[in-house]
């Protein structure tokens, strides 16, 4: 891994439980809420790093520690060589200006045109009018909405609004771009467009991107590495492909299952076994375990017919990944031999047949 551009060391963020005067008057002061609870992790320069978790897992707070919209209660955060711990509000402002951020609800200024929104961070940074004008043009062309400069945000679609958000976040040429649920308010097609744009930002401009999301699909399509968060802690961290192919933590398994939907649920299995008299098995397809060509070859060797009845193969971090559920038809000995052969090649879950169902292990 190349040098880290963001380093968390035992970072903790606590919010006081009694917020607002009404709760205090009741005289009960609950325990403070630990939104981020001792996170240690490094984000490498130049990567797309995903932080995934359910609502309330602390991922939004974690990302706000990076640009100091929130400050740590304990531990440290170092961004691009600057330790943010204990910096005054005035000293934090230039740090924030050097980090781009985009938001789920876009957070564009309704009172300004598209060009005015993109120019905003340049005004803050003290650019001259002429320089701002040229830079805004360049940015709007980069994100593909050069024709919308003089339109107000209200007249744009969600995808276009997020493009404005991205152009605005890139205006001052930051080294880091933070994306807080940037695609969660968008439809699937627009999501794909925006993710592709983030990928371009990463590849063409070399900007490190930190993506906060609750959608494994986002991690699957663009992230190099991923951290899974639950209750303020990082419960799993690693290469996106590794996390997908061998998820360790139950939360990660749930996310992986939700992203691929390639493994049949118990109810689906019952129907599959009813519909297909043969032996039903699920085989894993990935770079480490085995390819579908291998599966085909093993079945042919043993003279067993394999019909695909469920599943799918997709790409994770641009590498093949998924699983196939097959109905194996042949005489019992041959099917058993083929199963053994498959087990040598990849991970296999045997679901048995309708009359003799095997113990399901549909989770991975």
């Amino acid at each position, binding site marked *: 891994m190349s040098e880290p551009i963001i380093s968390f060391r035992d970072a903790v963020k606590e919010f006081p439980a009694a917020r607002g005067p009404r709760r205090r008057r009741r005289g009960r002061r609950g325990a403070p809420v630990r939104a981020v609870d001792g996170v240690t992790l490094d984000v490498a320069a130049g990567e797309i790093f995903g932080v995934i978790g359910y609502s309330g897992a602390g991922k939004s707070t974690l990302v706000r520690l990076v640009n100091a*919209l929130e400050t740590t209660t304990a531990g440290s955060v170092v961004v691009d060589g600057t330790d943010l711990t204990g910096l005054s509000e005035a000293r934090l*402002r230039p740090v924030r200006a050097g*980090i781009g951020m985009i*938001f789920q*609800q876009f*957070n564009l*200024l309704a*009172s300004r045109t598209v060009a005015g929104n993109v120019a*905003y961070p340049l005004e*803050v940074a003290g650019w001259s009018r002429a320089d701002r004008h040229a830079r805004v043009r360049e940015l709007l062309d980069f994100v593909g909405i050069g024709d919308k400069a003089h339109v107000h945000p209200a007249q744009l679609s969600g995808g276009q609004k997020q493009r404005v958000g991205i152009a605005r976040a890139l205006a001052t040429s930051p080294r880091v771009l933070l994306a807080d649920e940037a695609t969660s308010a968008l439809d699937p097609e627009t999501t794909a467009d925006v993710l592709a744009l983030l990928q371009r930002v990463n590849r063409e401009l070399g900007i490190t991107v930190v993506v906060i999301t609750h959608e494994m699909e986002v991690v699957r399509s663009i992230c190099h590495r991923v951290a899974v968060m639950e209750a303020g802690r990082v419960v799993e961290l690693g290469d996106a492909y590794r996390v997908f192919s061998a998820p360790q933590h139950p939360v990660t398994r749930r996310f992986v299952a939700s992203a691929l939907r390639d493994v049949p649920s118990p109810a689906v299995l019952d129907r599959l076994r009813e519909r297909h008299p043969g032996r039903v098995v699920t085989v894993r397809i990935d770079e480490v375990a085995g390819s579908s060509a291998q599966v085909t070859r093993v079945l042919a060797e043993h003279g067993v017919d394999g019909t695909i009845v469920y599943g799918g193969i997709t790409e994770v971090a641009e590498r093949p990944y998924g699983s196939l559920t097959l109905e194996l038809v042949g005489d019992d000995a041959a099917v058993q031999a083929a199963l053994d052969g498959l087990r040598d090649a990849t991970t296999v879950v045997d679901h048995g047949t309708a009359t003799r169902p095997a113990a399901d292990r549909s989770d991975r």
Partner: protein
Amino acid sequence: MNPDLVPVLWQAFGETVFMVLITLAVGGVCGLALGLGLYLTRPGNLLEHRGVFAVLNVAVNVVRPIPFIIFLVALGPVTRAVVGTTIGTGAFTFAMCVMASFVFARLVEQNLVSIDPGVIEAARAMGASPLRIVRTVVVPEALSPLILGYTFLFVGVLDMSAIAGYLGAGGLGDFAIVYGYRQYDWALTALVVVIIIVIVQLVQWLGNSLARRALRR
């Protein structure tokens, strides 16, 4: 109408315009400042400060509900200290300015709380200082409702000027009572009422169209 009254009506009109314009100007500026103070120091906002917020909030809550006719009299000592007298258009205009400031402060605050906090967070994320955020985000984003609030304030101030007029500040309200109501001249009273209605309609129309232009959505 008795032709002799025409110059008197004009003078009354002038007095009302004077009182209302001064009050709108002073009350607008002070009210905006007070309202921004309330909004910014509210817990969870940019310049969160419990003490300042509590003081401003209590001050606005105490002053605003006092009936204006009582407020005018009660403010007498302060008016004397500031203006030097408690009678005349100037003295009453001072009291109107104070009341208008507190009324407008609440109007401003109520319109600002509707601003999406996400937009302010975005500005913070771009490194903007609180003062810049007030100037370039808070006020422009809430401009349309602020204009409507200011228009509303105008009607309130016109109403105040009539009460002040009755107590000795002159103006249209005073004219209507002295030369209309007390002389049983209903036509004259009605004329003044019509003049006031026309003024209010014109200003409301102006406020609405400015607010619509400011609302770019």
